[in-house]
Protein backbone atom coordinates (compact mmCIF):
# COMPACT_ATOMS: atom_id res chain seq x y z
CA UNK A 1 0.00 0.00 0.00
CA UNK A 2 2.72 2.36 1.04
CA UNK A 3 4.79 1.30 -1.93
CA UNK A 4 1.94 2.05 -4.31
CA UNK A 5 1.57 5.54 -2.92
CA UNK A 6 5.25 6.11 -3.36
CA UNK A 7 4.96 5.03 -7.00
CA UNK A 8 2.14 7.42 -7.60
CA UNK A 9 4.16 10.16 -5.91
CA UNK A 10 7.06 9.64 -8.29
CA UNK A 11 4.78 9.60 -11.34
CA UNK A 12 3.17 12.76 -10.09
CA UNK A 13 6.57 14.40 -9.87
CA UNK A 14 7.48 13.35 -13.42
CA UNK A 15 4.17 14.74 -14.56
CA UNK A 16 4.84 18.12 -12.88
CA UNK A 17 8.29 18.34 -14.47
CA UNK A 18 6.72 17.62 -17.84
CA UNK A 19 3.99 20.22 -17.32
CA UNK A 20 6.60 22.85 -16.54
CA UNK A 21 8.36 22.21 -19.86
CA UNK A 22 5.06 22.14 -21.71
CA UNK A 23 4.04 25.49 -20.21
CA UNK A 24 7.26 27.15 -21.28
CA UNK A 25 6.99 25.78 -24.80
CA UNK A 26 3.32 26.80 -24.88
CA UNK A 27 4.19 30.34 -23.87
CA UNK A 28 6.93 30.36 -26.48
CA UNK A 29 4.40 29.29 -29.17
CA UNK A 30 1.92 31.96 -28.13
CA UNK A 31 4.55 34.69 -28.17
CA UNK A 32 5.95 33.77 -31.59
CA UNK A 33 2.96 32.47 -33.56
CA UNK A 34 0.74 35.15 -32.05
CA UNK A 35 3.11 37.72 -33.50
CA UNK A 36 3.82 39.36 -30.15
CA UNK A 37 7.57 39.42 -30.66
CA UNK A 38 9.69 39.83 -33.72
CA UNK A 39 11.16 36.70 -35.28
CA UNK A 40 14.52 38.43 -35.03
CA UNK A 41 14.44 38.41 -31.21
CA UNK A 42 12.63 35.17 -30.61
CA UNK A 43 12.33 32.65 -33.44
CA UNK A 44 9.43 30.19 -33.30
CA UNK A 45 9.97 26.69 -31.91
CA UNK A 46 9.62 25.34 -35.45
CA UNK A 47 12.29 27.66 -36.78
CA UNK A 48 14.64 26.48 -34.06
CA UNK A 49 13.82 22.84 -34.73
CA UNK A 50 14.39 23.39 -38.43
CA UNK A 51 17.75 24.99 -37.66
CA UNK A 52 18.72 22.02 -35.51
CA UNK A 53 17.76 19.78 -38.45
CA UNK A 54 20.00 21.77 -40.78
CA UNK A 55 22.89 21.67 -38.34
CA UNK A 56 22.43 17.93 -38.11
CA UNK A 57 22.34 17.60 -41.89
CA UNK A 58 25.56 19.53 -42.50
CA UNK A 59 27.34 17.59 -39.77
CA UNK A 60 28.18 20.59 -37.59
CA UNK A 61 25.74 19.58 -34.85
CA UNK A 62 27.65 16.50 -33.77
CA UNK A 63 31.00 18.11 -34.40
CA UNK A 64 30.20 21.09 -32.16
CA UNK A 65 28.50 19.05 -29.47
CA UNK A 66 31.40 16.64 -29.44
CA UNK A 67 34.07 19.35 -29.29
CA UNK A 68 32.35 21.14 -26.43
CA UNK A 69 31.55 18.02 -24.44
CA UNK A 70 35.12 16.80 -24.83
CA UNK A 71 36.47 20.12 -23.51
CA UNK A 72 34.10 20.09 -20.57
CA UNK A 73 34.91 16.50 -19.68
CA UNK A 74 38.69 16.90 -19.92
CA UNK A 75 38.76 20.17 -17.96
CA UNK A 76 36.40 18.83 -15.33
CA UNK A 77 38.32 15.54 -15.13
CA UNK A 78 41.58 17.29 -14.22
CA UNK A 79 39.72 19.39 -11.72
CA UNK A 80 38.39 16.21 -10.06
CA UNK A 81 41.75 14.43 -10.19
CA UNK A 82 43.48 17.26 -8.34
CA UNK A 83 40.63 18.34 -6.07
CA UNK A 84 39.85 14.88 -4.72
CA UNK A 85 43.17 14.17 -2.94
CA UNK A 86 43.57 17.85 -2.02
CA UNK A 87 40.11 18.04 -0.47
CA UNK A 88 40.56 14.76 1.37
CA UNK A 89 43.88 15.94 2.78
CA UNK A 90 42.40 19.27 3.81
CA UNK A 91 39.60 17.52 5.67
CA UNK A 92 42.00 15.30 7.57
CA UNK A 93 45.07 17.41 8.15
CA UNK A 94 44.87 20.72 9.97
CA UNK A 95 48.37 21.58 8.81
CA UNK A 96 47.67 20.97 5.14
CA UNK A 97 44.43 22.87 5.47
CA UNK A 98 46.16 25.85 7.05
CA UNK A 99 48.71 25.71 4.24
CA UNK A 100 46.31 25.80 1.28
CA UNK A 101 43.07 27.27 2.61
CA UNK A 102 43.98 30.98 2.24
CA UNK A 103 45.12 30.67 -1.34
CA UNK A 104 42.04 28.64 -2.26
CA UNK A 105 39.69 31.12 -0.65
CA UNK A 106 41.52 33.91 -2.47
CA UNK A 107 41.45 32.21 -5.84
CA UNK A 108 37.81 31.26 -5.45
CA UNK A 109 36.78 34.90 -5.67
CA UNK A 110 38.79 35.69 -8.78
CA UNK A 111 36.39 35.93 -11.72
CA UNK A 112 37.59 33.43 -14.29
CA UNK A 113 36.71 35.80 -17.12
CA UNK A 114 39.37 38.13 -15.78
CA UNK A 115 41.93 35.34 -16.06
CA UNK A 116 41.22 34.71 -19.74
CA UNK A 117 43.74 37.28 -21.04
CA UNK A 118 46.49 35.68 -18.97
CA UNK A 119 45.66 32.17 -20.15
CA UNK A 120 45.76 33.41 -23.74
CA UNK A 121 49.10 35.03 -23.12
CA UNK A 122 50.62 31.97 -21.44
CA UNK A 123 48.96 29.16 -23.32
CA UNK A 124 47.83 30.54 -26.66
CA UNK A 125 44.55 29.49 -28.16
CA UNK A 126 44.91 25.73 -28.27
CA UNK A 127 42.87 23.19 -26.32
CA UNK A 128 45.03 23.45 -23.21
CA UNK A 129 43.85 27.01 -22.76
CA UNK A 130 40.21 25.85 -22.76
CA UNK A 131 40.90 23.06 -20.29
CA UNK A 132 42.71 25.55 -18.09
CA UNK A 133 39.77 27.96 -18.05
CA UNK A 134 37.40 25.15 -17.07
CA UNK A 135 39.86 23.90 -14.48
CA UNK A 136 40.28 27.35 -12.94
CA UNK A 137 36.55 27.87 -12.89
CA UNK A 138 35.71 24.62 -11.12
CA UNK A 139 38.73 23.52 -9.11
CA UNK A 140 38.63 25.96 -6.19
CA UNK A 141 34.96 25.38 -5.54
CA UNK A 142 35.31 21.64 -5.87
CA UNK A 143 38.20 21.39 -3.41
CA UNK A 144 36.11 23.07 -0.75
CA UNK A 145 33.11 20.87 -1.53
CA UNK A 146 35.21 17.70 -1.33
CA UNK A 147 36.71 18.87 1.95
CA UNK A 148 33.26 19.54 3.33
CA UNK A 149 31.82 16.21 2.18
CA UNK A 150 34.77 14.27 3.56
CA UNK A 151 34.65 16.14 6.89
CA UNK A 152 31.01 15.09 7.12
CA UNK A 153 31.87 11.38 7.24
CA UNK A 154 30.54 9.90 10.49
CA UNK A 155 33.45 9.95 12.97
CA UNK A 156 32.03 6.82 14.63
CA UNK A 157 32.71 4.83 11.46
CA UNK A 158 36.31 6.01 11.46
CA UNK A 159 36.66 5.14 15.14
CA UNK A 160 35.15 1.70 14.57
CA UNK A 161 37.64 1.05 11.77
CA UNK A 162 40.57 2.17 13.92
CA UNK A 163 39.61 -0.16 16.75
CA UNK A 164 39.30 -2.97 14.19
CA UNK A 165 42.96 -2.44 13.37
CA UNK A 166 42.76 -0.28 10.24
CA UNK A 167 45.89 1.75 9.45
CA UNK A 168 45.68 5.40 8.43
CA UNK A 169 45.83 4.50 4.76
CA UNK A 170 43.21 1.79 5.22
CA UNK A 171 40.89 4.23 6.99
CA UNK A 172 41.08 6.50 3.92
CA UNK A 173 40.60 3.73 1.42
CA UNK A 174 38.15 1.46 3.19
CA UNK A 175 36.06 3.93 5.19
CA UNK A 176 36.37 7.62 4.35
CA UNK A 177 36.28 7.18 0.59
CA UNK A 178 33.31 4.80 0.36
CA UNK A 179 31.38 6.71 3.03
CA UNK A 180 31.91 10.00 1.20
CA UNK A 181 31.29 8.58 -2.28
CA UNK A 182 27.58 9.45 -2.66
CA UNK A 183 28.24 13.02 -1.52
CA UNK A 184 31.28 13.24 -3.79
CA UNK A 185 29.23 12.11 -6.76
CA UNK A 186 26.85 14.98 -6.04
CA UNK A 187 29.76 17.41 -5.86
CA UNK A 188 31.10 16.13 -9.19
CA UNK A 189 27.69 16.41 -10.77
CA UNK A 190 27.28 20.04 -9.72
CA UNK A 191 30.80 20.86 -10.84
CA UNK A 192 30.36 19.51 -14.34
CA UNK A 193 27.36 21.83 -14.64
CA UNK A 194 29.53 24.84 -13.83
CA UNK A 195 32.14 23.53 -16.24
CA UNK A 196 29.68 24.30 -19.06
CA UNK A 197 29.55 27.94 -18.01
CA UNK A 198 33.30 28.23 -18.21
CA UNK A 199 33.37 26.31 -21.48
CA UNK A 200 31.22 28.97 -23.08
CA UNK A 201 33.52 31.63 -21.64
CA UNK A 202 36.50 29.85 -23.17
CA UNK A 203 34.87 29.24 -26.54
CA UNK A 204 33.59 32.77 -26.89
CA UNK A 205 37.09 34.14 -26.71
CA UNK A 206 39.23 31.93 -28.83
CA UNK A 207 37.82 28.94 -30.62
CA UNK A 208 37.00 27.80 -34.13
CA UNK A 209 34.33 25.31 -33.12
CA UNK A 210 32.10 24.21 -30.28
CA UNK A 211 28.65 25.29 -29.13
CA UNK A 212 29.86 28.45 -27.41
CA UNK A 213 31.65 29.51 -30.58
CA UNK A 214 28.54 28.73 -32.61
CA UNK A 215 26.42 30.94 -30.38
CA UNK A 216 28.85 33.84 -30.44
CA UNK A 217 29.25 33.73 -34.21
CA UNK A 218 25.47 33.65 -34.72
CA UNK A 219 25.15 36.92 -32.87
CA UNK A 220 27.23 38.56 -35.56
CA UNK A 221 24.79 37.40 -38.25
CA UNK A 222 21.69 37.95 -36.10
CA UNK A 223 20.97 34.24 -36.48
CA UNK A 224 18.82 33.97 -33.36
CA UNK A 225 17.52 30.56 -34.42
CA UNK A 226 21.08 29.22 -34.22
CA UNK A 227 21.57 30.87 -30.82
CA UNK A 228 18.49 29.15 -29.51
CA UNK A 229 19.51 25.86 -31.12
CA UNK A 230 22.85 26.14 -29.28
CA UNK A 231 21.20 26.94 -25.95
CA UNK A 232 18.79 24.04 -26.26
CA UNK A 233 21.59 21.64 -27.16
CA UNK A 234 23.64 22.72 -24.11
CA UNK A 235 20.57 22.28 -21.91
CA UNK A 236 19.88 18.82 -23.32
CA UNK A 237 23.46 17.71 -22.83
CA UNK A 238 23.17 18.98 -19.25
CA UNK A 239 20.02 16.96 -18.65
CA UNK A 240 21.62 13.82 -20.02
CA UNK A 241 24.75 14.37 -17.91
CA UNK A 242 22.67 14.80 -14.78
CA UNK A 243 20.74 11.65 -15.55
CA UNK A 244 23.91 9.66 -16.16
CA UNK A 245 25.36 10.85 -12.86
CA UNK A 246 22.28 9.78 -10.95
CA UNK A 247 22.44 6.33 -12.50
CA UNK A 248 26.17 6.10 -11.85
CA UNK A 249 25.66 7.07 -8.21
CA UNK A 250 23.14 4.30 -7.86
CA UNK A 251 25.63 1.86 -9.36
CA UNK A 252 28.65 2.84 -7.26
CA UNK A 253 26.69 3.38 -4.01
CA UNK A 254 23.60 1.16 -4.14
CA UNK A 255 23.48 1.16 -0.34
CA UNK A 256 22.91 4.89 -0.21
CA UNK A 257 19.41 6.03 0.69
CA UNK A 258 18.42 9.13 -1.16
CA UNK A 259 15.63 11.33 0.07
CA UNK A 260 13.72 10.67 -3.14
CA UNK A 261 13.87 6.88 -2.71
CA UNK A 262 12.45 6.91 0.78
Amino acid at each position, binding site marked *: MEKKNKRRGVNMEHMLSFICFALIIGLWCVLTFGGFVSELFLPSPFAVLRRIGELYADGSLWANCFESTARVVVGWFWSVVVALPCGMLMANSRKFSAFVQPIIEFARYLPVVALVPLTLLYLGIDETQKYTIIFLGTFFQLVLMVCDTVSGVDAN*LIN*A*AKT*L*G*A*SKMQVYKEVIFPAALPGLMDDFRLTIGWAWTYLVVAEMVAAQNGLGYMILRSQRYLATDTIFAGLILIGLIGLVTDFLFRILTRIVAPWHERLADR
Partner: protein
Amino acid sequence: MEECKLQAVGLTKIYDGGSKGDVTAIDHVDLEVKDGEFVMIVGPSGCGKTTLINILGGLDTATDGTVLLDGKPVAGPGADRGMVFQGYSLFPWLSVQKNVEFGLKMKKAPKEERAAQAKKFIDLVGLSGFEDALPKQLSGGMKQRVAIARTLANEPEILLMDEPFGALDAQTRVVMQELLADISKKTRTTILFITHDIDEAVLLGDRIYVMSRRPGTIREVLTVHIPGERSHESLVLPEFLETKKRIMDMLWQESQDAAMDR
Protein backbone atom coordinates in the same frame (compact mmCIF):
# COMPACT_ATOMS: atom_id res chain seq x y z
CA MET B 1 42.14 -16.48 35.11
CA GLU B 2 43.75 -14.45 37.82
CA GLU B 3 46.23 -12.58 35.69
CA CYS B 4 45.46 -9.00 34.84
CA LYS B 5 44.40 -8.34 31.25
CA LEU B 6 43.74 -4.63 31.25
CA GLN B 7 44.82 -2.12 33.83
CA ALA B 8 44.21 1.59 34.18
CA VAL B 9 46.53 3.51 36.47
CA GLY B 10 45.65 7.02 37.62
CA LEU B 11 43.73 7.97 34.49
CA THR B 12 42.79 11.63 34.46
CA LYS B 13 41.18 13.58 31.66
CA ILE B 14 40.82 17.34 31.66
CA TYR B 15 38.99 18.85 28.72
CA ASP B 16 39.95 22.34 27.68
CA GLY B 17 36.65 24.13 28.09
CA GLY B 18 37.84 27.43 26.62
CA SER B 19 36.33 30.48 28.27
CA LYS B 20 34.10 28.33 30.48
CA GLY B 21 37.15 26.86 32.16
CA ASP B 22 38.53 23.33 32.11
CA VAL B 23 36.32 20.30 32.67
CA THR B 24 37.76 17.42 34.66
CA ALA B 25 35.89 14.47 33.21
CA ILE B 26 37.65 11.69 35.16
CA ASP B 27 40.02 12.00 38.06
CA HIS B 28 42.67 9.39 38.93
CA VAL B 29 40.70 6.33 37.91
CA ASP B 30 42.34 2.99 38.71
CA LEU B 31 40.77 -0.23 37.52
CA GLU B 32 41.72 -3.68 36.42
CA VAL B 33 40.07 -6.38 34.40
CA LYS B 34 41.32 -9.93 34.86
CA ASP B 35 41.66 -12.42 32.05
CA GLY B 36 38.25 -13.86 31.15
CA GLU B 37 36.42 -11.55 33.52
CA PHE B 38 33.18 -9.67 32.79
CA VAL B 39 33.51 -6.26 34.43
CA MET B 40 30.82 -3.59 34.53
CA ILE B 41 31.09 0.15 35.08
CA VAL B 42 28.01 2.03 36.27
CA GLY B 43 27.80 5.68 37.07
CA PRO B 44 25.55 8.70 36.90
CA SER B 45 24.99 10.36 33.55
CA GLY B 46 27.87 12.58 32.48
CA CYS B 47 30.34 11.16 35.02
CA GLY B 48 32.92 10.38 32.35
CA LYS B 49 32.17 6.76 31.42
CA THR B 50 32.51 7.33 27.69
CA THR B 51 35.64 9.38 28.25
CA LEU B 52 37.13 6.52 30.27
CA ILE B 53 36.36 3.77 27.76
CA ASN B 54 37.56 5.89 24.82
CA ILE B 55 40.87 6.36 26.57
CA LEU B 56 41.11 2.62 27.25
CA GLY B 57 40.32 1.96 23.57
CA GLY B 58 42.90 4.52 22.44
CA LEU B 59 40.37 6.82 20.74
CA ASP B 60 41.10 9.58 23.24
CA THR B 61 44.29 10.46 25.10
CA ALA B 62 44.50 10.81 28.86
CA THR B 63 45.81 14.00 30.41
CA ASP B 64 47.58 11.81 32.96
CA GLY B 65 47.89 8.12 33.76
CA THR B 66 48.60 4.91 31.85
CA VAL B 67 46.72 2.05 30.25
CA LEU B 68 48.38 -1.36 30.42
CA LEU B 69 47.39 -4.35 28.34
CA ASP B 70 48.99 -7.58 29.56
CA GLY B 71 51.29 -5.37 31.61
CA LYS B 72 52.52 -3.32 28.64
CA PRO B 73 51.54 0.31 28.09
CA VAL B 74 49.38 0.95 25.04
CA ALA B 75 48.70 4.15 23.12
CA GLY B 76 46.33 4.74 20.23
CA PRO B 77 43.61 2.40 19.00
CA GLY B 78 44.35 -1.17 17.99
CA ALA B 79 42.78 -4.49 17.11
CA ASP B 80 43.82 -5.85 20.54
CA ARG B 81 41.09 -3.76 22.20
CA GLY B 82 37.84 -4.30 20.31
CA MET B 83 35.07 -1.77 20.83
CA VAL B 84 31.29 -1.91 20.48
CA PHE B 85 29.45 1.40 20.44
CA GLN B 86 25.91 2.40 21.30
CA GLY B 87 25.31 3.59 17.74
CA TYR B 88 26.38 0.25 16.12
CA SER B 89 28.72 2.03 13.65
CA LEU B 90 28.29 -0.59 10.94
CA PHE B 91 29.68 0.24 7.51
CA PRO B 92 26.47 0.86 5.56
CA TRP B 93 27.99 -0.06 2.20
CA LEU B 94 29.12 -3.51 3.35
CA SER B 95 26.98 -6.62 3.76
CA VAL B 96 26.74 -8.33 7.14
CA GLN B 97 29.40 -10.81 6.00
CA LYS B 98 31.77 -8.06 4.79
CA ASN B 99 31.24 -6.04 7.96
CA VAL B 100 32.22 -9.04 10.08
CA GLU B 101 35.25 -9.72 7.87
CA PHE B 102 36.45 -6.09 8.07
CA GLY B 103 39.09 -6.49 10.78
CA LEU B 104 40.51 -9.61 9.17
CA LYS B 105 40.68 -7.83 5.84
CA MET B 106 42.69 -5.04 7.48
CA LYS B 107 45.10 -7.73 8.69
CA LYS B 108 45.20 -9.09 5.13
CA ALA B 109 44.04 -12.53 6.23
CA PRO B 110 43.45 -14.98 3.36
CA LYS B 111 39.97 -15.07 1.90
CA GLU B 112 39.05 -18.56 3.08
CA GLU B 113 40.11 -17.77 6.64
CA ARG B 114 38.04 -14.60 6.58
CA ALA B 115 34.97 -16.43 5.36
CA ALA B 116 35.33 -19.24 7.90
CA GLN B 117 35.86 -16.83 10.78
CA ALA B 118 32.92 -14.67 9.69
CA LYS B 119 30.64 -17.70 9.46
CA LYS B 120 31.65 -18.81 12.93
CA PHE B 121 30.77 -15.50 14.54
CA ILE B 122 27.68 -14.79 12.47
CA ASP B 123 26.41 -18.18 13.69
CA LEU B 124 27.42 -17.32 17.25
CA VAL B 125 25.28 -14.18 17.30
CA GLY B 126 22.41 -16.03 15.61
CA LEU B 127 22.42 -14.22 12.28
CA SER B 128 23.03 -17.06 9.84
CA GLY B 129 20.90 -16.47 6.76
CA PHE B 130 21.51 -12.71 6.87
CA GLU B 131 25.07 -12.78 5.50
CA ASP B 132 24.20 -10.79 2.39
CA ALA B 133 21.86 -8.28 4.02
CA LEU B 134 22.87 -4.62 4.20
CA PRO B 135 22.82 -2.87 7.61
CA LYS B 136 19.86 -0.69 6.60
CA GLN B 137 17.77 -3.84 6.23
CA LEU B 138 18.35 -4.89 9.86
CA SER B 139 16.63 -3.99 13.13
CA GLY B 140 18.57 -2.30 15.93
CA GLY B 141 19.09 -5.56 17.81
CA MET B 142 20.33 -7.30 14.68
CA LYS B 143 22.69 -4.42 13.91
CA GLN B 144 24.21 -4.71 17.37
CA ARG B 145 24.62 -8.47 16.83
CA VAL B 146 26.60 -7.72 13.67
CA ALA B 147 28.73 -5.17 15.53
CA ILE B 148 29.49 -7.72 18.25
CA ALA B 149 30.33 -10.41 15.69
CA ARG B 150 32.52 -7.95 13.80
CA THR B 151 34.54 -7.16 16.91
CA LEU B 152 34.77 -10.76 18.13
CA ALA B 153 35.85 -12.06 14.71
CA ASN B 154 38.95 -9.95 15.18
CA GLU B 155 39.77 -11.95 18.34
CA PRO B 156 40.63 -8.97 20.53
CA GLU B 157 42.31 -9.39 23.92
CA ILE B 158 39.44 -7.49 25.48
CA LEU B 159 36.01 -6.30 24.39
CA LEU B 160 35.16 -2.72 25.42
CA MET B 161 31.44 -1.93 25.23
CA ASP B 162 29.93 1.55 25.78
CA GLU B 163 26.21 1.24 26.55
CA PRO B 164 25.80 -1.15 23.63
CA PHE B 165 22.15 -1.88 24.35
CA GLY B 166 21.20 1.66 25.35
CA ALA B 167 19.27 2.32 22.14
CA LEU B 168 17.27 -0.93 22.18
CA ASP B 169 13.75 -1.50 23.46
CA ALA B 170 13.34 -3.34 26.77
CA GLN B 171 12.51 -6.79 25.34
CA THR B 172 15.29 -6.74 22.77
CA ARG B 173 17.69 -5.58 25.46
CA VAL B 174 16.99 -8.62 27.65
CA VAL B 175 17.47 -10.94 24.66
CA MET B 176 20.78 -9.25 23.86
CA GLN B 177 21.92 -9.42 27.49
CA GLU B 178 21.30 -13.16 27.57
CA LEU B 179 23.09 -13.55 24.26
CA LEU B 180 26.11 -11.66 25.57
CA ALA B 181 26.17 -13.67 28.82
CA ASP B 182 26.13 -16.80 26.69
CA ILE B 183 28.89 -15.55 24.36
CA SER B 184 31.05 -14.54 27.31
CA LYS B 185 30.75 -18.04 28.75
CA LYS B 186 31.38 -19.82 25.46
CA THR B 187 34.29 -17.74 24.21
CA ARG B 188 35.83 -16.72 27.57
CA THR B 189 36.30 -13.24 26.12
CA THR B 190 37.37 -10.59 28.61
CA ILE B 191 34.73 -7.86 28.66
CA LEU B 192 34.56 -4.35 30.08
CA PHE B 193 31.02 -3.06 29.78
CA ILE B 194 29.64 0.41 30.53
CA THR B 195 26.03 1.03 31.41
CA HIS B 196 23.84 3.27 33.47
CA ASP B 197 21.24 0.50 33.79
CA ILE B 198 21.72 -1.10 37.23
CA ASP B 199 19.81 -4.28 36.31
CA GLU B 200 22.10 -4.77 33.35
CA ALA B 201 25.19 -4.26 35.49
CA VAL B 202 24.16 -6.81 38.13
CA LEU B 203 22.82 -9.30 35.58
CA LEU B 204 25.99 -9.46 33.48
CA GLY B 205 28.88 -8.52 35.74
CA ASP B 206 31.34 -10.63 37.70
CA ARG B 207 32.48 -7.38 39.26
CA ILE B 208 31.03 -3.88 39.18
CA TYR B 209 32.86 -0.57 39.42
CA VAL B 210 30.55 2.19 40.64
CA MET B 211 31.63 5.67 39.62
CA SER B 212 30.96 8.92 41.41
CA ARG B 213 29.40 11.93 39.74
CA ARG B 214 31.69 14.18 37.73
CA PRO B 215 34.65 14.44 38.04
CA GLY B 216 34.36 10.68 37.74
CA THR B 217 36.26 8.62 40.28
CA ILE B 218 35.83 5.00 41.32
CA ARG B 219 33.51 5.08 44.30
CA GLU B 220 33.33 1.39 45.05
CA VAL B 221 33.97 -2.06 43.60
CA LEU B 222 31.53 -4.92 44.19
CA THR B 223 31.77 -8.60 43.43
CA VAL B 224 28.53 -10.13 42.23
CA HIS B 225 27.50 -13.52 43.61
CA ILE B 226 24.52 -14.87 41.75
CA PRO B 227 23.99 -18.63 41.68
CA GLY B 228 23.29 -20.46 38.44
CA GLU B 229 23.29 -19.20 34.91
CA ARG B 230 22.60 -15.53 34.25
CA SER B 231 19.26 -15.09 32.52
CA HIS B 232 16.14 -12.97 32.86
CA GLU B 233 15.18 -15.28 35.73
CA SER B 234 18.14 -14.02 37.75
CA LEU B 235 16.42 -10.64 37.92
CA VAL B 236 14.23 -11.77 40.85
CA LEU B 237 16.80 -13.73 42.90
CA PRO B 238 17.42 -12.34 46.41
CA GLU B 239 21.17 -12.08 45.72
CA PHE B 240 20.42 -10.04 42.62
CA LEU B 241 18.07 -7.70 44.45
CA GLU B 242 20.46 -7.21 47.32
CA THR B 243 23.32 -6.17 45.02
CA LYS B 244 20.98 -3.97 43.04
CA LYS B 245 19.87 -2.21 46.21
CA ARG B 246 23.43 -1.53 47.28
CA ILE B 247 24.22 0.13 43.96
CA MET B 248 20.99 2.10 43.97
CA ASP B 249 21.83 3.45 47.39
CA MET B 250 25.25 4.54 46.24
CA LEU B 251 23.92 6.29 43.14
CA TRP B 252 21.14 7.89 45.16
CA GLN B 253 23.74 9.19 47.58
CA GLU B 254 25.68 10.60 44.62
CA SER B 255 22.64 12.45 43.35
CA GLN B 256 21.97 13.81 46.86
CA ASP B 257 25.54 15.08 47.10
CA ALA B 258 25.20 16.60 43.66
CA ALA B 259 22.09 18.45 44.80
CA MET B 260 23.99 19.70 47.86
CA ASP B 261 26.79 21.00 45.62
CA ARG B 262 24.29 23.21 43.81
